[in-house]
């Protein structure tokens, strides 16, 4: 049994301008201690997918309308509030994009980590605080005793993100969901945080789902990649396979638009066109207006997700 099994997940947004299928039939699974990346442009549904895993999507307007999410064999979609609270932060933890604002400014870092420990474990105040110091040490913060007594505004961005990670991992979750954990940080700090996540995954055996639009980040940290486009899963592949032999035209476009050091061209390559507006999706394959390989069938029917070998699944008529 996998740690996490997502099957044909559908999240709809009920907006004033009509129905938006933010996540449309996405399936993937994750084994314990493995890591998975979800990539795509802004608005492709990757954050919605991640939030849905912990039932954190804002309802209304968003709602899980179909599919199932099984965590450790238990159906997350059917859980009641009490069970959800016991799951969140304890077995599945989340770290957000901006470490500047995910810490409460009026409490010290140590207090906040200790509080999240006490939420799920019946530790005393002192034991929880010691645990907080221990976690800060684990995430590589020098002088953790002192940092535990500091307020968030007294720490740098990198230190804060480390503290946020310490808080997320304080209850030994089986799964860590990281939504763009390095986007708000300096490049040098980004590398340190990624290195930290990799070390924690290896040392603690925590499963990681990493959400990002940065393919460089993906290559470094994850075992498998899910590529999303306009709410659809378009390609799911082992990370080496994805970089070596991308199958879906969208994935190829994404990889081509990553600038490299030995690049001959002077202009940055992009994918032509833009993501269609969420309430006016084209018929058939959602990528068809931007696709170079477009065929008649692409404008009529949605392509099925097919196994194309090498552990890769892709949804494209050119491959079917």
């Amino acid at each position: 049994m996998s740690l996490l099994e997502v099957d044909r997940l559908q999240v709809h947004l009920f907006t004033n301008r009509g129905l938006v299928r933010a996540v449309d039939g996405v399936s993937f699974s994750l084994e314990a201690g493995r890591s998975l990346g979800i990539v795509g442009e802004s608005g492709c549904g990757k954050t919605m997918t991640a939030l849905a895993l912990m039932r954190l999507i804002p309802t209304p307007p968003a709602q899980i309308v179909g599919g199932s999410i099984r965590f450790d064999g238990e159906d997350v979609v059917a859980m009641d509030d009490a069970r959800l609270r016991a799951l969140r932060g304890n077995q599945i933890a989340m770290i957000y994009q901006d470490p500047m604002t995910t810490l409460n400014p009026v409490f010290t870092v140590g207090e906040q980590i200790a509080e999240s420990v006490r939420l799920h474990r019946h530790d005393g105040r002192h034991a929880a605080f010691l645990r907080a110091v221990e976690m800060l040490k684990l995430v590589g913060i020098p002088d953790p005793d002192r940092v535990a007594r500091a307020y968030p505004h007294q720490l740098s961005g990198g230190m804060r993100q480390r503290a946020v990670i310490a808080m997320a991992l304080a209850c030994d979750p089986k799964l860590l969901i990281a939504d763009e954990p390095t986007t708000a940080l300096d490049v040098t700090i980004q590398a340190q945080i990624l290195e930290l996540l990799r070390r924690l995954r290896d040392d603690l055996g925590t499963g990681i789902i990493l959400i990002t639009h940065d393919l460089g980040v993906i290559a470094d940290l994850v075992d498998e990649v899910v590529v999303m486009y306009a709410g659809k899963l378009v390609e799911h592949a082992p990370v080496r396979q994805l970089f070596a032999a991308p199958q879906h035209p969208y994935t190829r476009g994404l990889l081509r638009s990553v600038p490299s050091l030995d690049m001959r061209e002077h202009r940055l390559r992009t994918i032509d066109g833009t993501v269609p507006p969420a309430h006016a999706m084209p018929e058939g394959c959602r990528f068809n207006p931007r696709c170079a390989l477009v065929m008649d069938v692409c404008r009529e029917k949605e392509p099925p997700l097919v196994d194309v070998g090498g552990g890769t699944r892709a949804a494209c008529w050119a491959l079917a």
Partner: protein
Amino acid sequence: MSDIAVTPSRQSAVLTYLAANKLTAMGAALCCLLIFVALISPWIVPHDPLEQSFATANEGPSDLHWFGTDAFGRDVFSRVLIGGRISLSIGICAPVLSALFGVWAGMIAGYFGGWTDRMISRFSDLLMSFPSLLLGVMIAAALGPSFQTAVIAIAVALFPRFVRLSRSATQVLRREPFVDASIAAGRGTFSIMLRHVLPNIAGPLVVALSLWVATAIRLEAALSFLGLGAQPPTPSWGNMIRDGMSDLVGDPWPAAFAGAAITLAVLAFNMVGDALRDMLDPELDS
């Protein structure tokens, strides 16, 4: 890391601030003094504030009666001291009671939004649409005049202000990522309000509370003046002015000193409120 500034403790920060702001220090000292005197007044009054003596009625200030005597020959100084007990305790109890309900109502409205918000907001708008004195008079008249009625009347009059304040502050906080993060950490709604919302809106609330204590003291005086607060012979600053009004030309002292006491108390709490606001306002931080 060695570059983390050592935070001075809250207490010493407050003391430093007070040392630099003489006016604030005066206001704070005055508030403490007024409350202290009101607390110990039964043991320090020179005369029984209720003892009547027609032989000494309507006297001006003298060695024996520092603030003179009223129409019944009662010692005005003693009555001002004892009257402060009623005026200040209503002035403090009413806003605190109001805050207790109003802050929660506002947080619930601001946090949940939608229908909950609309119901709570409309109710508080309804209360807000009456001038607070009129509302106080209506409630005090309906429930019958007494100390408790005055507290309830003033608390109801202040309720919508606390609702508005905490509602709007909560709406801003609700969108803070640390609130989302703590939902993701498995915290329940009540616990989030208590842990994350309340401490973050405490600053403006404390400021409002101290300013509205001054408002409540004025309201209490007005209610007592209209005969709807503490009932004679129990003195309060408001009903002393009322009693003094009957012979303002012949014996102005009871009304004058009671009025001065009200002015002093309102001034003191306003000074503290303004100072707290400046202290907690990051934009005025120098």
